[in-house]
């Protein structure tokens, strides 16, 4: 063994670090089925089996610092084949939750912070939001067969409350039209809240359960406030 390579002291590793994670990672028999099924195997020299073993051994820092838990799409193929029923995707998410929030990759944390502060990922003011919705609604109403179309915001007592993905009021406004037209044709009694309307809950991706709770709680509050019993949350 070359002297220059750095050794990890196994004695120092506490493999009870992740003991209270109820994800059965200790049951792993290193069969490799997960790694063989994973579309992300090989990226950064990682695979799900390696990740689970690192967790099992207590290699906390390398596992939290590595990029791979964020490259994983949590598709669940690994869980599907694992003979020991290890919740590998859940474990990946938990690893994500251990990272300092400022080190969360990409725009995920920024968007999440914006949503927690303003109710949406873009920090889009309420008036602007309403303006964009009504603008799109006008375009729909101009189409044959959709005369009279209007978008009901904050409608109390409606049957259905729907959230909005932030990209639909940013770069993909056209995509609002598809499902709004379906509502119209079906005669649906629907509404959009003008506050806390954000559908993407990036706490899910960043492993932030508290944030998820907050976001979900706000939507629930809207339902209560507007007395709407059904929620459509396409996320």
């Amino acid at each position, binding site marked *: 063994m070359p002297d220059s390579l750095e050794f990890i002291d196994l004695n120092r590793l506490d493999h009870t670090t992740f003991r209270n994670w109820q994800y059965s990672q200790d049951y792993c028999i290193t069969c490799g089925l997960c790694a063989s099924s994973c579309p992300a195997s090989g990226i950064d020299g990682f695979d799900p089996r390696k990740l689970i073993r*690192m967790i099992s051994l207590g290699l906390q820092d390398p596992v939290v610092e590595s990029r791979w838990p964020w490259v994983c799409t949590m598709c669940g193929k690994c869980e599907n084949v694992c003979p020991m029923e290890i919740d590998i995707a859940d474990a990946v998410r938990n690893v994500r939750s251990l990272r300092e929030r400022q080190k969360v990759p990409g725009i995920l944390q920024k968007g999440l912070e914006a949503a927690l502060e303003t109710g949406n990922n873009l920090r889009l003011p309420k008036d602007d939001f309403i303006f964009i919705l009504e603008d799109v609604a006008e375009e729909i109403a101009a189409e044959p067969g959709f005369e009279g179309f209007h978008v009901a915001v904050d409608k109390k007592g409606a049957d259905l409350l729907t959230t909005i993905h932030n990209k639909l009021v940013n770069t993909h406004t056209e995509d609002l039209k598809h499902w709004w037209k379906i509502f119209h044709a079906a005669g649906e009694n629907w509404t959009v809240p003008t506050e806390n309307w954000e559908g993407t809950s990036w706490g899910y991706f960043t492993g932030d359960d508290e944030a998820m709770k907050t976001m979900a709680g706000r939507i629930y509050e809207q339902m209560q406030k507007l007395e709407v019993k059904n929620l459509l949350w396409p996320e």
Partner: protein
Amino acid sequence: MTGKTLLIGNGPCARRIAEDLVARNRGILVATPEQGFDISPALAAKYTAETSMEILTETKVISCRGSAGNFSVALKHNGKTRKAAVGNIVIAEEERRIPCFSLYGLTPASTIISLSDLKPLVPEPPGNHRRFAGITSMVFLSGIVEESNPVIMEEIMAACLKLQTSEKLKTYILTRNLKVAADGLENMYRKTKTAGVVYIKFTDAQPEIVQMEDGRVRFEFVDEITGDFLRLSADLTIVDEKIAPSNYATELSRIFELDGDPNGFAQRDNVHRLTVCSNRRGILVAGPARCVQSISDQYIDAGNAVLSLLEQERPASDQGVEKARIETGKCVRCLTCYRLCPYRAILVNTRVAVAPDACERCGICVAECPRGAIGMGQQESSKPLVLPAITGAKAVKDDRLPSITAYCCSRSAARAAELAARLGYSLPPGLQVVEVPCGGSVSLGHILAALNGNADGVMVLTCHEGNCHSEFGNIYARQRVDRAKALCAAIGMESGRLVHRTLASNMGIEFAQAVAEFEKQLLEMEPGRLKTGKK
């Protein structure tokens, strides 16, 4: 055949055999080189009250004469020899554990011990920390250089489970292929992992193992799953053990002239010996003396041994069948038969005679006797035992096709011939299958007689090496074919007219292919010039 049983051994298997036999009031003589025979107090009471059991401690077997039902065994105790007349013998010696220190480059020390050293230290019930004061990490080495087995792995896992849950120690198991092929072992593996035992598995690489001056051992290796370089230091290192037969068991194998196996076990792993038989009737090998066994395996062996002993009291299944018989007038006491008999069924006294109760009718002696002095039923040295030929269905006799005599062992090739016919393969019309009790009963005389009689070519088809009931019959058969080939070459005859092949009873297509191929080869030759047409 109701004689006393000589039970040589100690430990769970021997104990159970003894208990069962005493319960049935059978005469039993226990002989062990050890100082005591491990039996229950109840049994000891029986021993003193009745005389159906005699226990000889510090006693070794020196020699044995006789055969099944009638053995005369010489036993030595304290320098004195005594003879015992017994009907049958059971070898039920305990195992011997060989610690693998040197395999790992380690020297035993207070901090480097074997699994057997550890076991008494693991507290039962758990809770005693004193023994392991100052020890945080314990590393178990198992099967890294040489493969291990489930018996060892179960002991290691059981120890780790107790140590990890009760002693607040950190245990690590370094192994190559993790052995889980035993009842409950996969479950135990799971339990040890949840208890916190860390497993490191190696495939091709090995860890670097360094014994430090303070007695600790340092391990350095690459974890095969994560690719990390890891260093592990053990306060206490436990090496695994090879499970071997006791030296005495190996010695007994020699004394009783058993076919031992190369590892020293007293039973060779020939499938015909399953479960506790040896190559000699009346001598059984049970427990760790015959292979690596768990405790539950040993109990099952004990049951099989007792069953076999009871069976030996019954009329033998081949009773009334004629055994080999030496014609005194022709015998010159060359002792060839004595040396060759795989079952040690030849007794040498004033006369050389076959012990009928030990003879298995393999016919090797008949084939080898240079004087043709041994007969066996219809089998004589130049006249083979001929049974109805098995030819393929719808075979048409055609004089242009070669005549083939195939001497087929009854246990393998003859049955394969039947299977081939059953599967619908059409066998060469010129094929005559001659069933023989063992490949070893086919003598050079048989082969030449066939060539001199009706055959353009002769096949000798026997069991696979290691599968012969007589252990060596197939080897002799091959040697005789080789000798015959040399003779053929000497007279300018094609040696391709003779072939030895091995088969098993379930090899139907292979039989058909072998005979078809042989016929094809013979078709390229002229008819055999030694043929006289006599069958």
